[in-house]
């Protein structure tokens, strides 16, 4: 939010000192490439990204892989080394069938949020595509990973590859010692709860004995220093000491309510073996690692697309890629950012590349050529001249939801002709809530922002209580928003997994948070075998 992050330093390097060097400055002349070409492309992109755009990136590691390896990487959620599980085999078989039939092309690259930042590029790509991919992934995504607050707070780019290695070995060893079936069962259950396995807020640090002692001593020293026997003589209210109720005590003990179901199971599951706890922890950590990506998908792609567009245009201006190559870039670029209208058969939601890129370009426009409307809506940035500091600040400080709320302009709403629908299953018709007009801008913007807010799109499920003295039943609550209850069949399947890990009965209550009434209840017992 603050303008303190704006950094005007980057303007200095506009004209590269080597701009009037030799005639043939082309990085490559035809589609063929070798490692030397890749290096030249990378260095050229780096010059623009770090110099002109002022990006700051992790060191890059570019790995050339074959299409089969790309499919491999797809199957294990893009991570280079991952533990073994049947679901990855399923995804692989699915992807492979689609790919073989030609229904789906492969992504040109996969990039991993790690330090050094690993980008996979496919050997089938032409030199132009490699340039596009390097600019997009090795600089765009890389900058976003390194600088965005959510990534910085929640993921450990340095440690992730080592952690994955550990996870893989741990699961393999567990399979050897306890059998593939038992491990698979635990992994299945943990995977089912994966999206309930992330902390959405920073955890309150549980005080450990040492720090608690330290605090106690400090307090006593303080009391001793300020001791004055006179105070004893001053009459005051006698404080009624209310003992905490049984429920409060239990909740404090188990850190309830707890939205991170996997964390709760790992710490408090009564009958889990140590290796099961570790596996739950692994799944939880992986879920947590991916959590920022889900919250910033649109911005991340927008940032990367904007970066490659800018870098490649500059390379073309400098005469370092040919006109033909530029046409290939534009062709790929425009198919990436294609956004079909809602009534188009190809429509499948808002394309994050399209919206992200459009917003980045819109910010550039507001900074450089603002209209009166922009002056009114964005007084802070309109006409500030240089978009890069604004963009860099946005990339660092926002996630999709807050970014839209802050930066989606009326101009862009009109351009995309966004409109808002309100669909109440209790009413016969769907209502158009707002369109791209003066009355609607703010509402469209707010509704779109909510569409990117996990708090609105994902069910809010928490562990609220455990009947410790009775049958140890676990009570889980879904706070139903806008009457949107859970899909029942799926919910029962997931609860079975939850009951398996908990080992006792589980009760899921879907409650209306306003009135507190219970809308539905699902009770599941652990499987007996």
């Amino acid at each position: 939010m603050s303008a303190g992050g704006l950094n005007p330093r980057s303007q200095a390097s506009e004209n590269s000192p080597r701009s009037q060097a030799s005639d043939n400055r082309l990085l490559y002349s035809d589609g063929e490439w070798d490692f030397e070409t890749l290096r030249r492309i990378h260095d050229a992109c780096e010059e623009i990204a770090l110099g002109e755009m002022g990006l700051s990136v992790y060191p890059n590691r570019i790995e050339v892989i074959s299409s089969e390896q790309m499919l491999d990487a797809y199957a294990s959620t893009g991570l280079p080394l991952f533990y073994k599980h049947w679901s990855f085999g399923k995804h692989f078989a699915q992807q492979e069938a689609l790919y073989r039939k030609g229904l789906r092309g492969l992504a040109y690259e996969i990039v991993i949020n790690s330090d050094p930042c690993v980008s996979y590029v496919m050997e089938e790509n032409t030199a132009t595509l490699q340039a596009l991919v390097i600019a997009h992934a090795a600089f765009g995504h890389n900058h976003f990973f390194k600088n965005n607050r959510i990534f910085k707070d929640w993921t450990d780019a340095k440690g992730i590859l080592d952690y994955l290695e550990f996870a893989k070995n741990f699961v393999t060893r567990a399979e050897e010692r306890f059998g593939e079936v038992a491990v698979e069962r635990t992994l299945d259950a943990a995977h089912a709860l994966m999206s309930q396995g992330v902390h959405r807020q920073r955890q309150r640090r549980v005080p450990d004995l040492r720090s608690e002692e330290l605090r106690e001593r400090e307090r006593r020293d303080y009391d001793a220093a300020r001791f004055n026997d006179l105070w004893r003589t001053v009459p005051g209210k006698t404080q009624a000491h209310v003992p905490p109720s049984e429920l409060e005590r239990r909740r404090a003990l188990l850190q309830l309510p707890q939205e991170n179901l996997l964390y709760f199971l790992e710490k408090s599951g009564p009958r889990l073996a140590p290796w099961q706890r570790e596996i739950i922890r692994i799944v939880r950590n992986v879920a947590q690692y991916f959590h920022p990506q889900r919250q910033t998908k649109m911005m991340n792609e927008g940032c990367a697309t904007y970066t490659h567009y800018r870098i490649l245009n500059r390379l073309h201006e400098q005469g370092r890629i040919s006109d033909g190559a530029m046409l290939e870039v534009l062709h790929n670029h425009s198919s990436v950012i294609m956004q079909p209208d809602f009534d188009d058969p190809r429509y499948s939601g808002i394309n994050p590349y399209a919206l992200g890129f459009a917003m980045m370009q819109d910010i550039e426009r507001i900074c450089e050529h603002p209209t009166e409307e922009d002056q009114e809506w964005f007084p802070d940035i309109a006409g500030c001249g240089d978009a890069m500091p604004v963009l860099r600040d946005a990339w660092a400080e926002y996630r999709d939801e807050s970014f839209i709320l802050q930066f989606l302009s009326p101009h862009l709403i009109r351009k995309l002709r966004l409109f808002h629908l309100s669909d109440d299953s209790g009413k016969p018709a769907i209502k158009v809530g707002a369109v791209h007009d003066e009355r609607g801008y703010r509402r469209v913007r707010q509704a779109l922002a909510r569409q990117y807010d996990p708090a609105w799109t994902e069910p809010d499920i928490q562990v609220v209580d455990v009947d410790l003295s009775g049958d140890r039943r676990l009570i889980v609550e879904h706070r139903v928003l806008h009457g949107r209850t859970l899909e029942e069949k799926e919910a029962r399947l997931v609860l079975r997994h939850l009951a398996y890990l908990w080992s006792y009965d589980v009760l899921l209550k879907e409650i209306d948070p306003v009135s507190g009434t219970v809308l539905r209840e699902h009770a599941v017992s652990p499987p007996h075998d």
Partner: protein
Amino acid sequence: MEILDRRLNPKGKSLPNRQRFLRRAKALIQDAVRDSSAQRDIRGADGGGEVSIPMHGVREPSFSLGQGGIREHVLPGNKEYREGDEIQRPPGGGGGGSGNEGSDDGGGEDSFRFVLTREEFLELFLDDLELPDLAKRRLAQLVDPAFRRAGYTSSGSPANLSLSRTLRNSLSRRIALKRPKPEGIAQFEAEIARLEALGDPADEVPELRAQLERALRRSQRIPYIDPIDVRYRRFEPVPRPVAQAVMFCLMDVSGSMTEDMKDLAKRFYMLLYLFLQRRYKQVEVVFIRHTHEAKEVDEQTFFHSRETGGTLVSTALEEMRKVIEARFPPGEWNIYAAQASDGDNAAGDSTRTARLLLEHLLPAVQYYAYIEVGRDGEHGMPGFPRGATDLWRTYEQLVVAGAPMAMKRVRNRREIFPVFRELFRKRGLTEEATA
């Protein structure tokens, strides 16, 4: 910045995952494999291929929001709507908009198609089948030994000397016989040297020298390594089960056998061949066709050339007996036979056929399968059950008497796989089924 070439990394990184997936979805895939194999043509019978399994069997559930309630959508590309307009819901009840990323991994589909390799296909297809009487009855006579480690021996060739075992024996012997240690001797010598340097004040040196002398003599008498310490690794020959099989394909090619019937028979032979190939390293195939006389032929002739003549089954059995005698001694070969016929046989031939089988062939073979092929629709006449053929009646008596033989009727291409499966179903399963 570094550029790495990962293309040469080992391939098939996802193979373990795939195996786990196949194991997980085994029942579903097996059903799909059976379904698809019923429709396959002969060349595809052993190939891999695409199968389709229902999605719900391999679902990964997660909490998701269901239908109903109040939903909000923002969509691009408005053309005509104004604020406050009402849009009728589409009659399908699907609701407007796609929600957010509803079908991320194609989860919306009901079934899920993917490709199996040839090995995977066969593995699944033949999974619960078993060759009857797999172990050769006269295994003891086999002369195909393999060597296996079997403890230690006190004699052997130097190449098999077990150093650690030998030294262990040597050490225990030296301890037991109290052979003086080199350190002890060195100590004596040092002590003598020290006392001599001092001028031997207590006159101990002669005593010490005597002791040293005894120790030296003792250590010479008790050798460091004695021949009784030496041990060699022992190897023991074990008979190895015969890993070769021969499959006899017998077929009636007389005029009454149509191309369709031959096709049915061929499918059956194919399956048997594939099946044997999975169990034995080496599988030989012998084709014998017969009319009123029998001949061993190559595969092409067997299936494709036509002959005319009467039908004498016993000639084929006689030919098979000869071939066995000449080339496949039953002690070394696992012999399987599959006979296909339309069931016709010359009237007087039954006794001879039965005798040949009973006396010469059945003792030699592991398993004898007979399939009787008929025209599609032949049995379709309700109320007119097709009478048992001559050959069927002959064989039936043998089966009842407990011969290692099985027989089935096949009318249609679809029945080949079930019949094959039934003939080779694991013993335990059949017993369960009948019990």
